[in-house]
Each structure stands twice: as C-alpha cells, then as structure tokens.
C-alpha cells in the first residue's frame, strides 16, 4: 500500500494502553529458561505416566500415581505458566518485574522443588517432601512478590486482573500443599479425598486454568487478528471462574454438597463464557486458521470432556468405581486442556521472544538472505508432528482414564514424551541453525585485501 498523504489524527491506542515501554520487557533468557524447563517437565510427565500407568488405573491414590500427577502440575504446567507470567505480566501491564534476579531465583527454587516433591511422594520420604515444600513455598512467595509489581497496576483490563487473581490462587494452592507436606509426620489433617479434590481444583482451575482464561483474552485476538465488537464473554469468564473456584473449594472442605454444586455451576458458567469468547474470536478473525488454532480448539474439546466427566462424578448416582474413573478423566482432561494450550502457544511465544533476542545479537537475516522472520525459528512440519502426537496423547489418555485401559494410558505417556522432545528440539534448533549459519558466513568472508582497499595507500613500486 502506498503511503497516504492524508492527514490522520494521532491518537492513543483505543484499548490495551500505550505501547509497552522497552524497560518493561524482561530479558529473553528469563522466560525462555522457564519455558525450556516446562517442556522438560512435559517429557517427564510422559515418562512417569508411562511407568505408572497401571498404578494410575488400579490405585489412583498410591504414592507413585500422586507423584505422576504432581510432575504434570508442577514440573510441566505450573512451570510453563510461571514462566509465561514473568514475560506476559510486565509486557501487558507495561510495568517491569520488581526484580529480574528474583525471577531467576524463583526459577532456581521452583524447578528443583517441582521434581523433588514428586520424587519424595514416589519414594515415600517425608523429610524430602518437607524440603520440597519449603523450596516450592519460597518460590511461590517470591513469584507473588515479584509479579505483584506489574500485576497490581490498575486499569490494564481483564487479562491483568485474571492473572492477578490466578497468582492469589497459586499462593492458596501452595499453602494447602505445603501444609500437607509438613503434616505428614503429625497427621493433624486427614488427607480425605474431598480435601485432595479441593486442592486439585484450586490448583488446576483457580491457578493454571484462570491464568489461561485471562491470558487468552489478550493472546487470541492478537494471534487471530480478531477485532471483536465486545469482550464481555471473556470478562465474564474471568470473573465467574475466579468467583466459583473458592465456592467449590469451601464446599468440598466443609463438606457441603449444595455449596459445591453452586460453585461448580458458577465455574462451568465461567468456562462456558471462555468458550463463547473463543467462538467470538474465531468468528471475527481476520486471518486464516493455523496450527495454534488447532491446538486451542482441541484444548477446548478437552475442557468439554472434563466438564462432562465432572458432571458424571458429581450429579449422577453411579458406583464408586465409575465415580473414581470419572474424576480421573476430569483431572486428566483438565490437564490436557491446559497442556495443549501451553504447547500450542509455545510455538508462538518462543519465536516472538527469540526473534527479539537474536536481532539484538546481530542475527537479522535468514539463511536465504531474507530478513529474519518468526517463521524461520520454527520448523512447521515438526510443529505439526508435535500436534499429532499431542492429540494422540489426549485421546488415548482420556479413553484410558474413562475405560481403565492401562495400555491406552501407556500410549498417552509415550506420546506426551515424544511431543515434548519434538517441541524442545524444534524450538531450540531454529535459532541455533540461524546462529550457526551466520558464523559460517562470517568465517567464509574473505579477509580484506590491503591492496584493494581505498583507505590504504597503494605501495609505490621502486625500480
């Protein structure tokens, strides 16, 4: 399009505030390190699920099954969301983290804790569990303090509000978990199934789920270039999920079935609003659908599966065995709702972050000599392969949990591990290839010939 000579009034952006100050963006290594650890967590989840598949089916309360769940929640999902929050919070709020160093220390506390805690569960070592609890609790406190810098900024819309509330749920979930880690010696609180469920729903829906519901309201319109007439559905989604989760948790803890049902109804209304928001973004999109949207839509299907499974467990008069499988299916489907969303968005977010870092380091061209684009940092067929294996994992895992099929869950575990391997190789090899190419090109450049340079005086021949 040719440059217009027409005078156009200059205005501030209509929504979302002014462009982000460069000072607000944390250094690329911080979110990238977090996200790399999260993908390793995904691989770990796949491996542990494969190894513990039989236990997960037959004795879901056994320590090794609990360990597997915690690898998924801590090493994979929470690590990914914490990492994304360290990038997304400052960028969207337009205010930097309180401390980048604190972000690094948080990661150094969190990542070991996210592996140590499942290990302690699996090997039944209460002392290790307490150590992991201290590490995780410290990391959560540090993250809450650090992220409160950007997230307490007012007037930044639903995404920041939702992320702020999600951090509150993270603190509550961690306090819950750490209490039980220390209580293992004393047994003040019996680890009743309804208490475990309260802990699980606070973490899965209140912390990770709400964070995704909130962040999606920023990312979806951006990636789909959707100019929606209204953001009401997304606004409702955040408020209803945030309002419903505490009611569910209290209802489970008291216990009060009516309260749990009311809370569940509010949460389901919020998640439905989240899906309505997704439908609105897709309807008003200005770009064709791409791989990210396949991830997001498959993730939405898993959310619907989770709601149905929860309904079967909570509303129908079924046997204990069926209820147990329904709850397992619900927890797994919620995990994959969030897991698929994380994996899909990684293929967008990591190239965004890497691109800026690479250009700052002088890598501005693709191997074909054209300007470096995001597309040069991701191998598209590999990304599609990762989607295929992730879908296999989601489908076989859900079927395995619902039907009690060990083999299906083993397939799910292997598929998850393969997905993680593909993702990490794909997202790291793209930038490395560009860097290697630039180094080769630099080595291949001939040394300047002093005789041909204009700055150097040409020697005068002496006869």
């Amino acid at each position, binding site marked *: *399009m*040719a*440059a*217009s*000579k*027409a*005078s*156009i*009034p*200059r*205005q*501030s*952006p*209509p*929504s*979302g*505030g002014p*462009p*982000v*100050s*460069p000072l607000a*963006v944390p250094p690329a290594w911080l979110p990238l390190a977090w996200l790399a650890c999260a993908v390793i967590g995904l691989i770990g989840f796949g491996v542990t699920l494969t190894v513990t598949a039989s236990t997960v089916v037959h004795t879901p309360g056994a320590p090794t099954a609990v360990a597997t769940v915690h690898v998924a929640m801590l090493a994979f999902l929470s690590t990914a969301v914490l990492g994304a929050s360290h990038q997304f919070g400052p*960028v*969207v709020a337009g205010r930097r983290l309180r401390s980048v160093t604190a972000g690094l220390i948080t990661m150094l506390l969190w990542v070991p804790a996210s592996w140590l805690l499942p290990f302690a569960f699996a090997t039944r070592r209460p002392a290790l569990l307490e150590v992991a609890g201290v590490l995780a609790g410290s990391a959560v406190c540090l993250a809450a303090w650090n992220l409160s810098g950007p997230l307490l900024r007012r007037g930044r819309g639903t995404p920041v509000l939702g992320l702020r509330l999600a951090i509150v749920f993270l603190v509550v979930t961690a306090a819950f978990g750490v209490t039980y880690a220390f209580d293992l010696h004393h047994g003040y609180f019996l680890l009743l199934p309804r208490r475990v469920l309260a802990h699980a729903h606070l973490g899965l829906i209140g912390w990770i789920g709400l964070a995704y519901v909130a962040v999606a309201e*920023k990312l979806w*319109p*951006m990636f789909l*270039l959707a*100019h929606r007439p209204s953001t009401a559905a997304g606004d409702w989604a955040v408020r209803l999920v945030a309002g419903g989760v505490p009611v569910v948790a209290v209802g489970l803890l008291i216990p009060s079935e009516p309260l749990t049902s009311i809370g569940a109804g509010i949460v389901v209304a919020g998640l439905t609003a989240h899906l309505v928001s997704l439908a609105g973004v897709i309807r008003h*999109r*200005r*770009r*064709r659908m791409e791989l990210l949207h396949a991830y997001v839509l498959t993730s939405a299907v898993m959310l619907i599966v989770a709601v149905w499974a929860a309904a079967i467990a909570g509303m129908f008069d079924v046997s204990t065995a069926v209820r147990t499988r329904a709850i397992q299916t619900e927890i797994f489907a919620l995990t994959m709702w969030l897991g698929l969303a994380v994996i899909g968005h990684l293929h967008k977010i990591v190239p*965004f972050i890497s*691109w*800026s870092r690479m*250009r700052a380091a002088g890598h501005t061209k693709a191997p074909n000599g054209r*300007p*470096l*684009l*995001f*597309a040069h940092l991701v191998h598209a067929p590999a990304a599609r392969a990762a989607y295929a294996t992730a879908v296999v994992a989601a489908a076989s895992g859900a079927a395995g949990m619902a039907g009690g099929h060990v083999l299906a869950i083993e397939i799910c575990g292997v598929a998850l591990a393969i997905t993680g391997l593909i993702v990490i190789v794909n997202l790291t090899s793209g930038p490395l290839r560009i860097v290697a190419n630039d180094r080769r090109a630099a080595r291949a450049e001939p040394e300047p010939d002093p005789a041909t340079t204009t700055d150097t005086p040409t020697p005068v021949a002496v006869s």
Partner: protein
Amino acid sequence: MGTPITEADIERVDAALHEVYDPEVGLDIMTMGLIYRLEAGMEKVIIDMTLTTPGCPVSDSLPEEARQAAARALDPGGDDRVNLEVVWDPPWSPEMIDDDALAELGYRRVTN
C-alpha cells in the same frame, strides 16, 4: 536552519521502509499498510505508523526499526530529521494490505 526535506528524500525513505519487515507476516511495513503518512515537513520527514494490534509483540521494536531505516536513508544527520509517531486511528485492518499479498497470506476481508 536545517536542510529542507526534498521529494528525493521522501523517495529514499519510502524505499527504506520497504525493507522493514513485519516479522510474523513476512511482508514489509509499506505493503502491510502500516505506514499511514509519509510526507515532508519543514525540516523533518513525518511518518505516522500503526501496528496490527495494540498488543503486538513487536510494538517496541518495529517502529524503532522503521525510524532507524528512515534515518539511515536521510544520512547524514538522519536521526534528527525523522519524526515517527505510532498512531492507532484508524485501526489497522487487512484491507490495508495490497490485494496480491492479501490473497497469498489468506487474510479475510470483512464482508459485513
């Protein structure tokens, strides 16, 4: 009194902006229609630029890259001869991309 901006300066800046690419779409910012105004002021080139969305991840780097490209095209002293502002009205839409690029990218025109 500085050097006045000439038509030749504008043409050089126009060409320079054709070399600044949107890193996600892979089109230059002129073809994308992100440059709303490019004209000669008294002593500066005036550029009004937008971004695809306010939350665009390159909202820092792309305008700065465009400003630097324009400044290089105006050397010497180009840094002081460019006045680039990011504007948001009217909001950018794919209609601002030229037809061939639009079809190639698979963007959708608004029909309602």
